[in-house]
């Protein structure tokens, strides 16, 4: 009984220390942020009904393919990676899967005004324009034209994608994934001068930041890290989840094994404790 009291004292003080240096300290070290907003509520809503067929025409006339490839539709990149890197700082994305990856409202907003949608107005302005120019319309109803283009991108997008494919299309242009053998296509020097810092390799980022942080960060980088060069990319809730799952499969590839083996070892020591208790009781019988 006395031993249990002592144990309670030990656990109590250990618990206070743990609480202080872990959960409590983290609330003090990391600012609390609002949960991820996958509705992109801050952006202007495009309520027009898009038409994919018209969208295809608008897409061609708007000059998108001057920079962007759409490989799935037989539209190759206008320049190779090195030249694109040198021209834009970063290799522009192929748009084959954009309709699958990105929120439709975000897509509409990013076509209309890239810096606002990406939340990089602190970096780009009239003096230093963003490499992706705003779409100023073809003379008709600009919102209708944009809605048509979004409908077109959605119509050509694959219906399902593997987690890794999502990462390749959404993140790899800037972020290598060394541990999965993937190096970004952009030239590191060009990218560094474009972003002011070299975007990190994400191989271990799942262990460094954790799922919770990444969920709010990817959704809106400025919220977690004010002033960061990383743009808001506009992933849907489902595709962002795919990205994080992929990061976990690379950076924490032994998670399942760890949790399974952990239970076996714990089970072993529970059984061992029972035997240890019986043995102790037996040898102590003669002295108590």
């Amino acid at each position, binding site marked *: 009984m*006395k*031993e249990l009291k*002592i*144990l309670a004292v*030990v656990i109590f*003080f*250990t618990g*206070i*220390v*743990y609480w*202080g*240096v*872990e959960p*409590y*300290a983290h609330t*003090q*070290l990391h600012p609390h942020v609002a949960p991820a907003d996958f509705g992109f509520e801050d952006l202007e809503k495009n309520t027009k009904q898009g038409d994919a067929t018209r969208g295809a025409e608008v897409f061609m006339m708007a000059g998108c393919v001057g920079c962007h490839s759409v490989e799935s539709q037989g539209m190759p990149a206008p320049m190779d990676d090195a030249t694109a890197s040198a021209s834009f700082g970063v290799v522009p994305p192929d748009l084959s899967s954009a309709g699958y990856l990105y929120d439709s409202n975000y897509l509409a907003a990013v076509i209309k005004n890239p810096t606002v949608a990406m939340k990089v107005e602190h970096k780009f302005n009239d003096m230093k324009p963003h490499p992706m120019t705003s779409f100023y319309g073809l003379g008709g109803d600009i919102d209708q034209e944009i809605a048509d283009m979004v409908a077109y991108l959605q119509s050509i997008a694959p219906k399902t994608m593997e987690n890794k494919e999502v990462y390749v299309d959404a993140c790899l242009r800037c972020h290598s994934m*060394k*541990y999965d053998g993937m190096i970004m296509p952009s030239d590191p020097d060009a990218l560094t001068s474009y972003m002011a*810092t070299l975007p*990190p*390799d994400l*191989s*271990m*980022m799942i*262990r*460094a*930041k*954790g799922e919770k942080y990444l969920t709010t960060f990817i959704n809106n980088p400025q919220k977690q890290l004010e002033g960061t060069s990383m743009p808001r990319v506009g992933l849907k809730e489902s595709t962002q989840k795919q990205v994080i799952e992929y990061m976990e499969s690379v*950076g924490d*590839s*032994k998670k399942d*094994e*760890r*949790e399974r*083996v*952990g*239970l076996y*070892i*714990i089970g072993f*020591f*529970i059984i*061992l*404790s029972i035997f*240890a*208790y019986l*043995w*102790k009781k037996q*040898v*102590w019988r*003669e*002295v*108590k």
Partner: protein
Amino acid sequence: MARIEKANGIVDWLDQRLAVKTLAKVLMTEYWIPKNINFLWAMGVVLTVLFKILVISGIFLLMYYKPDVNYAFDSVNFTIMQEVEYGWLWRHMHGVAASAIFLVIYIHMFTGIYYGSYKRGREMIWISGMMLFGIFSAEAFSGYMLPWGQMSYWAAQVITNLFGGIPIIGDALVVWIRGDFAVADATLTRFFMLHVLLLPLVIMLLIVVHFYSLRIPHVNNEEGEEIDFDIEAEKYKAGNKKESKVIPFWPLFLSKDFLIVSIFMIFFFYLVSFHFSFALDPINFEPANAMKTPAHIYPEWYFLWSYEVLRGFFFDVGSIAAADIGLAAFGFANVIFILLPFLDRSPVVAPASQRKGFFIWFWLLLIDMIVLTVYGKLPPTGANAWVGFFAAVLFISLFIALPFVTKNETKRGA
């Protein structure tokens, strides 16, 4: 030379040559431990087991680890954590044991303080123990650098920089420790050597000294009772086992320790598999980057109390810079525990509950160190800085006050 006869078995053969029977008696079956002890007396064996885990897991990690700033991070996080079968297990065990061992060291230390197990002949036990604490701290610090993550680098930067505060030789000393003007490859390779060779050797030697130092004054007990071990041992050997106040190390004492270690391992492997972030700080999974200072730099939890003593003095006093006062206080905090047997002026060996002034002193110290630990991690701004300051002042005052608190204590219950 001893007379060697034809042996009647392997044990006898060995006994004639190595005196194994005598050895077993001395170390095991006739090494007498008081019966009146609680589970806190098992912490020494728990520590021994944790140290063994560290050595064994360390050996496995050593097979794949590369002490080079270009390869260290990937050798840990890719090769060991993902490629090598169960490499993650060894690494998690190593990281969690390094943290858990400090928890148990602190429990072990405070047990010693509470029951007065550091005086009246037990001074060398305490002193060798505190030397172990010091070397373990160096071992932990050097090991933390090896994965070459962000906190490895920045903690190394901040801690090695501290030596710059030492008058006259400071700047040269920092360069000497780092092996370079900045924390760099030379720093990593020398801390690697310290971590895997020199410090473990010293630790093993000190553990032997620590164990040996127990033999003459014997293990203390729950009441601080002075036991005549010879008489009690005779009683035990004569068969009056229930009446005797002692038990043999084997199997009696170890059977209890074995139980406690087994239970502790349940908790340990829960931490290893499911709850390890307290020991494997997420920020250290970002590779070291000299161009990118982390938002918050803090040491591992077990250094926080002394780190907070260092940071607590945040304002200049007259012409003395805050950093110098802090450094002096930090130095004080790191050596003062070893002097405990001489600061406690009372000859009484008894649990703190039977020593009025000391009882208050003990709990004040414990609470103060917890406050220091918690505030050591928080940003030192606003009210936090003042809490740190007063807690640091209290810490130092407690040790200055100890001789006065204990001086007048003459008899038990006073």
